[in-house]
């Protein structure tokens, strides 16, 4: 990731754990991730891999004191000032000026993320009034402009309607209008189309792409759908058990996918047009381990078909080529040597 634009977000060694009644849950265990200006970073992983927690950490939305956050989230705002979001006190002015204005978020469930007792006009103009020095009528104009931008027909009329009067796809458009109303530099989209039908999903993905080009926004797109990633993202991070296991640009990930987990993900879902490959999928064995008991070595070792003795040790993040990283012993040049030693000892 060297030859393109400047870093917008630089996450360094982010760790998040939660205290629960049944022990500490290690949700994110040392994530390094960069989001570049005007690019889309796709984050893929199964439920519980820490992808949504990472997103919440960027917005400083994690509940304190239950969540322990360490590491750095360096965010460069419009004025070019870099702040570490982790160190900003909760409910401070500093975080409130970033949240909603510099970074905004859309969620999976447009049904539950809109307030049912306020009209959508009131909800969007609230965001505008909070972050911009404008009068109420200017905020209203801005709201109407945003609603027509996201393709809601007759926005002046629909301004006064309530969330239940909109369909799922229309609600997600309202969410996007709200998120984009203050022209943020980063839009975090957490499974934005998972609850939608395929034809509506296609509409929303196209809308996100046009919005991104028009507003020069970066997008962090969290999803479990590899098809959505391939269509939308330029950079991809594959997460497993709180760690990034593979990180690179979209072509590197989809053509090579060196990590056994990424390979497993690609082979475990039916891909349109590949029926000729026979009726058996090659799913990943077992299931995601409990995040309360972290494995000592590689987190994927218990499910990995290529497991080596060395996998009992935590693998380092290896740079395969410029900007392409994999966390797996299989691709380590030194692993063969170590492996030989281990085998000698075993003999």
């Amino acid at each position, binding site marked *: 990731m060297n030859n393109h634009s400047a870093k917008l977000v630089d996450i360094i060694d982010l760790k998040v754990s939660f205290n629960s009644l049944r022990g500490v849950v290690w949700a994110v265990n040392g994530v390094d991730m960069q989001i570049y200006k005007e690019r889309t970073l796709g984050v893929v992983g*199964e439920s519980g891999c820490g992808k949504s927690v990472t997103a919440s950490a960027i917005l400083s939305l994690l509940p304190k004191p239950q969540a322990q956050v360490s590491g750095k989230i360096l965010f460069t705002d419009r004025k070019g000032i870099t702040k570490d979001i982790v160190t900003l006190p909760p409910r401070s002015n500093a975080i409130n000026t970033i949240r909603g204005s510099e970074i905004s978020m859309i969620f999976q469930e447009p049904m539950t993320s809109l307030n049912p007792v306020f009209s959508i006009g009131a909800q969007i103009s609230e965001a505008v009034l909070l972050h911009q020095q404008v009068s109420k009528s200017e905020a209203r104009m801005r709201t109407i402009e945003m609603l027509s931008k996201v393709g809601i027909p007759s926005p002046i009329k629909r301004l006064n309607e309530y969330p239940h009067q909109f369909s799922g796809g229309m609600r997600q458009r309202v969410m996007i209008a709200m998120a984009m109303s203050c022209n943020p530099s980063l839009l975090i989209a957490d499974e934005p189309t998972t609850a939608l039908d395929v034809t509506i999903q296609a509409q929303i993905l196209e809308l996100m792409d046009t919005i991104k080009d028009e507003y020069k926004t970066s997008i962090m797109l969290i999803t479990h759908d590899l098809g959505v990633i391939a269509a939308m993202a330029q950079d991809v991070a594959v997460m497993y058990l709180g760690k990034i296991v593979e990180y690179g640009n979209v072509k590197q990930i989809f053509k090579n996918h060196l990590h056994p987990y990424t390979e497993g993900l690609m082979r475990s879902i039916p891909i349109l047009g590949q029926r000729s490959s026979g009726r058996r999928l090659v799913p990943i064995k077992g*299931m995601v381990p409990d995040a309360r008991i972290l494995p000592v070595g590689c987190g994927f070792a218990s499910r990995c078909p290529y497991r080596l003795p060395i996998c009992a040790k935590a693998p380092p993040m290896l740079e395969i080529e410029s900007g392409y990283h994999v966390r797996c012993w299989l691709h380590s040049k030194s692993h063969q040597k170590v492996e030989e030693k281990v085998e000698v000892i075993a003999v």
Partner: protein
Amino acid sequence: MIGNDNILEVKDLVKWFPKKAGLLRKNVGYVKAVDGVSFTIRKGETLGLVGESGCGKTTVGRLVSRLIDPDKGQMLFAEDGKDNNVDLAKLNGQELKNIRTQVQMIFQDPFSSLNPRMTVKEILEEPFIIHNMGTRSEINDRIAYLMRAVGLRPEFISRYPHEFSGGQRQRIGIARSLTLSPKLIIADEPVSALDVSIRGQVLNLMTILQESFGFTYLFISHDLSVVEHISERVAVMYVGKIVEIGSVEQLYTSPKHPYTEALLSAIPVANPEIKPKRIILKGSVLSALNPPSGCRFHTRCDYATELCKVVEPLLEDVTTGHQVACHFSGDLKLRGVEMFSVSASTG
């Protein structure tokens, strides 16, 4: 009567749900969830039923399993061991109870479809008790056998559903549907609620079970990639009607209905180098409360003419086994899915 190879022949099935409104709960109209649906399922095959939310696919499944009663239509079922067929739509009382041993259902949500206060053993033996079948030891043997068949350890039978993960619960749901050796299994979105890596495991299990027990699936799903993978034939529904039905190859490579074409093109392909030109349909699925006149798809169709607004097209043969409900199915050049080789994505 019913063809020899067919297990089920559905003819002109209709289900309208009354919509009541106002203080006196007056009937203000009907939601035409299923409005004249005909299809056949052959013995031992999997028929995929796809469509967007609200198209009536789940209602069809519930009608076939007689969880709800149809208003009109026939559902001829080739009962095991009998020469003449029974009409599932006309059964009542004891006859209906008997037929339930042969028609079973797998539900979408493994969290709400298992009784949390029953152990796995109680869940699996309940069908035998209801139908007064088998001796104690036969039942126990059968339960242990089924547990192994769905990939669970027989020792787990004294556990409660909450002690299992989503994938394991879905396996219990599958085992329950298999207890009385049914001939037809209606699977309503059986993998939609599961994580990507677990989805592959459950799909493989369903295929393996079908190969060893030889039953027939009616596989209801909104996911066209999953349906392509598991089905031999596919039916596409839109607002209460089947618009196209054919073999997987016919439907996916040369769709004849514009809706099928749009659905196929809307699926994001997990390959960043293939950027198919997506057909973005206008609007969303229309309400079945007030379906438009003529062809129900004409409001969203790019190819619609005046004829489509007035005359409703009938489901007619275009080639052997491939039926389409479109006035212009012969004239339109529609794009299907390009079948690409497997090596591109597994390499």
